[in-house]
């Protein structure tokens, strides 16, 4: 990175992204809420969409709309080509070896459920163990609980340290010959911790276990390379990556997908159907029963183009800058406690304020145009672990600014003032 003379290194880094130009791409950011300019800091829940994505959806429905993988007419061919081009964009984005390893699903949740119900039900036996962590989102807990209920396998939980870092010792102790699968988030949605997944994957492989990585909170914030990680499954959602809702991706190693039975039955996933016997298509289509979210996939492709053009690393640096700034500023607020202080974090700041419940913080911030998430963040075990009923969570994206960090800080002071 070139550093302009006389400028602080960090400032040059932020400028590298040209935030104001980026913001111009996001129509939803330019509005007032309760008479105040919107400060959108709920990006871990969902990100806003750039016009490039919105226009892609619009164009698809206006001119190319048709069903995919069937029909010989021009529109169907255009729709199919665009849908499969999106799959190739995802492959490249994850650095996956083959497009056959990219399954379109509704989102991270469906990706995880697919693995649990297809791979899990086929392969797990009583006394096998599935390992998750104390910091998982409900979507990476409940599918495994259901699977364990169905198969008699046991669920093991890797504990987390006070600062939000997973216990390496606890993980090493839990891994064993009974471990069949480790399901871990790349980044914690409630704490922001970036987990050392590469190391965890290699440890799991040593005992012969597979690893599923929940990438919902990672893909928009750091470069992801499934070949380098050597993960067996990687799931993420389009809508947290500036893409549409209703579309997500499951990456799975080809050899695993080949052996996995269908997750759902229906059209689009079969070779031949008779009342006696049905044969299924090869992956990925075997796992895409029914008409998929064609527009969503194409929109996700546009979102990936958008992020690629800016560069995952530049985005990550910008968000780190905001995180550091915000962490320093809110740490100075008396009575405020940050939940999740791991050394390696994405731009997520969860906090509680003495004497002011998170919901009241959320409402008071909202009155000032500042949107944050309040509650348990679909991670109730994390709340129990840190003995808080709820937290307020600010989460940053590529379009957030330092001024917005200031607005957050001012809003928290206002909450303190109201509850004095």
């Amino acid at each position, binding site marked *: 990175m070139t550093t302009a003379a006389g400028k602080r290194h960090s400032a040059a880094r932020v400028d590298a992204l040209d935030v104001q130009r980026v913001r111009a791409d996001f129509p939803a950011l330019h509005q007032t809420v309760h008479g105040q300019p919107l400060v959108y800091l709920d990006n871990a829940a969902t990100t806003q969409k750039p016009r490039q994505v919105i226009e892609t959806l619009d164009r698809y429905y206006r001119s190319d709309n048709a069903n995919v993988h069937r029909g010989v007419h021009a529109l169907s061919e255009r729709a199919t080509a665009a849908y499969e081009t999106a799959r190739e964009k995802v492959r490249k984005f994850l650095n996956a070896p083959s497009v056959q390893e990219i399954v379109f699903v509704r989102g991270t949740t469906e990706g995880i459920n697919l693995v649990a119900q297809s791979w899990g039900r086929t392969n797990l036996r009583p006394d096998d163990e599935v390992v998750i962590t104390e910091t998982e989102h409900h979507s990476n807990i409940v599918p495994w609980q259901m699977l364990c209920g169905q198969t008699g396998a046991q669920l093991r939980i890797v504990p987390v340290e006070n600062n939000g870092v997973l216990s390496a010792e606890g993980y090493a102790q839990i891994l064993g010959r009974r471990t069949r699968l480790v399901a871990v988030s790349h980044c914690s949605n409630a704490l922001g911790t970036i987990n050392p997944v590469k190391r965890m994957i290699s440890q799991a492989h040593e005992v012969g276990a597979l690893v599923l990585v929940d990438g919902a909170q990672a893909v928009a914030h750091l470069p992801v390379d499934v070949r380098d990680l050597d993960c067996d499954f990687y799931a993420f959602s389009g809508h947290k990556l500036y893409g549409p809702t209703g579309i997500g991706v499951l990456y799975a190693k080809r050899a695993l997908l080949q052996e996995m039975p269908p997750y759902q039955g229906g059209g689009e996933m079969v070779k031949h159907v008779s009342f006696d016997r049905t044969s299924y298509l090869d992956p990925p289509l075997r796992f895409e029963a029914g008409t998929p979210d064609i527009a969503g996939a194409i929109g996700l492709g546009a979102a990936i183009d958008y992020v690629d053009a800016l560069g995952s690393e530049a985005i990550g640096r910008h968000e780190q800058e905001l995180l550091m700034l915000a962490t320093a500023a809110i740490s100075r607020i008396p009575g405020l406690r940050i939940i999740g202080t791991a050394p390696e974090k994405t731009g997520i700041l969860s906090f509680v304020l003495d004497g002011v419940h998170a919901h009241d913080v959320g409402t008071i911030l909202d009155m000032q145009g500042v949107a944050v998430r309040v509650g348990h963040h679909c991670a109730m075990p994390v709340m129990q672990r840190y003995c808080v*009923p709820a937290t307020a969570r600010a989460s940053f994206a590529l379009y957030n600014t330092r001024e917005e960090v200031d607005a957050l800080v001012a809003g928290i002071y206002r909450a303190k003032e109201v509850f004095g």
Partner: protein
Amino acid sequence: MTADLRSLYEEVILDHNRNPRNFQYAPPGANHVAHGYNPLCGDEFTVSLRLENGVVTDIGFEGAGCAISTASASLMTEIVKGKTVEEARALFESVHGLLTSEGSGGPMGKLQVLAGVREYPARVKCATLAWHTLQAALRKEQGTVSTE
């Protein structure tokens, strides 16, 4: 404070949040108890009361919640004490009406401060949590009442 915020966080609400009445208290000889939970936000209250000859002679609540749910619970315990079961139910209906539609069934007294919550749909469940729990306690329902 802006006018908007003042309409939600009225002084009475702030006061009942700061010093909730009958809080972390279960009356001696309580014969009706219920547990209420708002899964959306994690607010959780247990309402305990002593019912004698159809009259709520003592009532308290325990747990943790936001300012709106705590103040609403606190106000509720103050107002319901000494009321008959029918009067308590009527109050629940009035509060429900106040929070979900224009106006209420009758004179609300202090409870009128909850009217501001109506403008914040996401917070209505906070204000009704204790009241739903009271209803369950009066009906001697088992298990946890949920606002969902």
